[in-house]
């Protein structure tokens, strides 16, 4: 199967620390890979390196075969991205925000009906689509963010803690949407703290600690308790994560 996202010895060092240490990882088409780990484990750094927001110290990140650092725009054009906090323009409506991001993504004349159908698809009904974003809840913003990512029609999606702050019902909807996308052939790389959701939707789970990918698990072969145990074993001395998990 085609590897749409690939990291080869991907490393990012800052002045006093190594945020990511020689990461080797790939995400194939129709696959969801979740990265689990404590704050500072390197999950967001991995996503930022794929997006070209950071320059790698060594190694390389590839999106559908395009090396990110050498051809940033080409690589970004093949990526959809949903951040932890989807930020939108409060003076514009959800529809207008989507229209703006879609146009900037290269579609110079998106049809309104198509945009509305995208918002429908992520669960943002007609009434909400025309309201100003300043009146949106966090969940509604996340949905617009996902619609923005979907509108690009890319085969690879990067999600940085997208479920954080969503109520259980919204998180459920979000996850089932991701599963549908993966079933249609999209490669999804998602950073999350949520073991339960990761177990539910991921094809593989990568556990990160202190900038290294310490284990790759196939959640189908584990039950929730076993996954938790393995995770906590790795996070043994990481109090902050234990608090998160609890």
């Amino acid at each position: 199967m085609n590897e749409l996202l690939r990291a080869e010895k991907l490393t990012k060092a800052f002045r006093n620390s190594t945020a990511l240490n020689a990461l080797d990882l790939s995400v194939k088409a129709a696959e969801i890979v979740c990265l689990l780990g404590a704050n500072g484990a390197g999950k967001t750094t991995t996503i930022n390196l794929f997006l070209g927001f950071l320059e790698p110290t060594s190694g390389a990140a590839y999106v559908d075969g395009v090396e990110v650092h050498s051809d940033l725009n080409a690589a970004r054009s093949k990526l959809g991205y949903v951040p932890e906090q989807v930020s939108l323009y409060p003076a514009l409506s959800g529809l207008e925000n989507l229209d703006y991001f879609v146009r900037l993504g290269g579609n110079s004349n998106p049809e309104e009906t198509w945009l509305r159908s995208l918002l429908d698809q992520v669960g943002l009904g007609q009434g909400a689509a025309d309201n100003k974003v300043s009146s949106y809840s966090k969940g509604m913003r996340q949905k617009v963010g996902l619609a923005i990512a979907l509108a690009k029609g890319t085969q690879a999606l990067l999600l940085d803690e997208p479920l954080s702050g969503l109520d259980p019902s919204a998180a459920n909807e979000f996850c089932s949407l991701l599963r549908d996308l993966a079933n249609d052939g999209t490669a999804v790389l998602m950073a999350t703290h949520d073991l339960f959701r990761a177990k539910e939707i991921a094809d593989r789970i990568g556990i990160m600690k202190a900038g290294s990918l310490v284990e790759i698990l196939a959640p189908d072969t584990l039950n929730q308790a076993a996954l938790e145990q393995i995770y906590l074993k790795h996070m043994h001395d990481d109090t902050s994560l234990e608090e998160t998990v609890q």
Partner: protein
Amino acid sequence: MIGTIIQKELTEFRRDGRAIGLLGIVGLLLLLGLMTGFANESARKQNVQKAMADDAAVFLEQGIKNPHAAAHFSRMAHKPVAPLAAFDPGVASYLGQVIWMEAHYRNPAMFRRAEDAPELSRLENFSVAGVLTLILPLLVVLVGYGSIASERERGTLRQLLGAGISLPRLLLGKFLVIAGVAFTVLFSAVLVATLFSLQTLSESGYSLFDLLLRGGSLLLGYGLYIVCLTAITLLVSTLVSSARSALLVMLGVWVVAVVGLPRLSASIAEQVYPSPDAVKFWQETRASLQANSPPPGSEDYTMLERQVVERALGRELREGELQEVAINRGALMLEVSELTGAKAYNAAFDELFANYDRQRHLRRLLSVLSPTIALQHLSRTYAGTDVSAHEHFSLAAEEQRNNIVRVLNEDMMINGVGQSFGYVASEDLWDSVPIFEYRPASVAYAWGESLVDLLVLLLWGVLAIAALFRFGSTRSVLR
């Protein structure tokens, strides 16, 4: 893609009540500046027209009189109101409006409006140019300080880049919106001011074509100013950590570069090249006049006498004819003294204007620290209200003074033979005295005078844009 950014920014701008309010305030200030300037210049135009008519009537109706007495009675040269003075009054208020063209003396312009101004008339200096120079930068700062910093704080910057737009394109889109808003304000102000100026055009001596070129030149100059202000504002917005910091930094830049440095530069120029005080100026001019006037009977004096007589008679004199020719010798002496006097006065006034030039060059040097200084020079030069425009008028008035006195002295020289100073001319003579028809310097002259200022503004614009796209397009903007 740029069009999409512009459209979205304008939508946000339209929906932001504060931005519309800000534009409204700037518009009101411009309107006030325009009305104040137009009221001042219209009143001045009427005064000039009335004074010119009165002056002509008094001179033409002075009756029979000795021509040299008439040369002292003489005429006034009224500086016409530059059509764009309502846009930028420049230094016109400080340089005087009328030159008394009398025999023997080259007088400075009288009736400096600043001298007559009561305390409350400070509003007279409130002009469109003043608003554009001071307030337009503030508009650019307030519209643009958060352009990138707010996007970063809000988190939309990451998403925009994630959506596939490059940072230089985003900067270009933001740049075009901010500069476009400011340029719309500028264009409206210059257009309205130019249309208003049409009312004073006929008496000003300027042609319509000249006026339009001046308006276009003002747009170019102020446009470059907007370009560099916008680029600097955006650069600061990309480099500092938050929108609030960007605002504080830009307000600091505004206070220093727009408000402080132009005033400081004028004080520095005056300190380094002080303008002479009136008493000293006239003492030195008189001393120079005495030192450089050839004594009667000297070879130089005789040469001047020959030159004057040959010019009056319209033919060359034979050897030894100067002493025999039938002319009024008193008039000859007066005209020779005019020639020697004019030389000394011209040297003194040349030095005075050269000193103004030195002050201007020094201010230009300081414009590397603030483009506002270059803009002020450029604006008043294009408006025809700067020192060089006044010098042009002063030289024309001096030429006219020489012509008037010469016509009167030559009449006495030729027609007053044997009557010395008892000669009186008929009233017809006053009609033959040439009328002062001043043609102000063309826009080409203004272009030449302000070329350096334009280049300074251009350099500022190019460097600011280069810095914006060099330092504002790096990944560190995302930090």
